[in-house]
């Protein structure tokens, strides 16, 4: 969907927030940022966009740009929290590159994501559900709940996420090539 950002159109802006706010939040949270820091990372991306409006030539790619900028800001905040010295002030805004990992996530896509989890075989389905809904559970707790050896939780988690990713990619291809 194109966004005509040359026009002072508040509706187009609200559509951007509606459409991409979801995945920007996911990107910031995926960095392990707390809610306050994640909010700063997301807000940074919106402010960079308003600063950059005159230089944006490809409104179709604004979504990818917003997600990339959120990731960039989240990484910077993460480094600061980790006590790493900042190399100067915020760097330039990243190029408007594509971002395959961010090909998720609207509300509808969120539903498809969980539908894909439901098609996974056990123990993947239960393991992913537990990891998501009980993030504080350690591997020992997960192992007890699922009746698995604790040493296999890590490798199983990796394998299940890989399967989920494959399912989503297949799903994505089917939608692209009806």
């Amino acid at each position: 969907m194109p966004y005509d950002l040359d026009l002072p159109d508040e509706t187009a802006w609200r559509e951007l927030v509606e459409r991409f706010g979801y995945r920007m939040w996911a990107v910031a949270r995926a960095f392990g940022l707390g809610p306050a820091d994640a909010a700063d990372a997301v807000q940074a991306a919106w402010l960079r966009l308003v600063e950059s409006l005159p230089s944006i030539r490809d409104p179709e790619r604004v979504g990818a740009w917003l997600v990339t900028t959120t990731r960039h800001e989240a990484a910077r905040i993460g480094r600061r929290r980790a006590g790493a010295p900042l190399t100067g002030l915020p760097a330039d805004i990243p190029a408007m590159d594509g971002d395959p990992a961010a090909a998720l996530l609207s509300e509808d896509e969120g539903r498809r994501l969980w539908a894909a989890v439901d098609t996974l075989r056990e123990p993947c389905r239960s393991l992913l559900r537990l990891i998501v809904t009980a993030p504080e559970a350690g591997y020992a707790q997960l192992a007890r709940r699922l009746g698995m050896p604790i040493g296999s939780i890590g490798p199983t988690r990796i394998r299940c996420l890989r399967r989920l990713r494959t399912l989503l990619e297949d799903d994505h291809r089917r939608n692209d090539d009806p």
Partner: protein
Amino acid sequence: MSDDDYLLAALRIAAGSDPIPARVSADARAVYGLRLPGAVTAVPVGPPPHVGPGRRPPSGTRSGGSGTRSGGDGDPLSGFGADAIGVGGVGRRLGGGGRHGDGAPRLLRFAAGGVTIDVEVTIGDTHIDLAGQVRPAPGDGSRVEIRTPHISKIRFPSETGEFATTGLPHGWLSIVCHRPGLPPVATRWQCLRP
């Protein structure tokens, strides 16, 4: 961040176990109102070399009275419009006497279109004070607007381009220099927190 981290974060959000705070979406929508058509963005170029902690406060900056007004119509600045603490107040803070928080002023320099904006920011426990200078001095009829996403303060710079303000909330900040007949120069937004 790995792809797996992202996928798990996406699952959490989609499951409703990590909803986007309403405030985050509201703030994102409100950013639209911060556009400055035609403005030149001044980018950070590192701290000014000639200033440091203990720098003398700007003198002769006109602020307060007719020199202070709220931002745009309907701007929720009414509580700030009369705060106009004189430059001496800011200067005492910046100079050490009234310092709070970690107390160390942060020095920022921005430049664009032949204009340099130096800012010395003191981040306290509850608010931010700042003093700055536009160079070359922007001349008669110019004004400096200190913006946060929710409030805006106007200062009329001194003959040497100095300005100051106090009592800003923590968070995002941008300084705009409006000059008659020329495009405004706005610093990139900076997030300032203790």
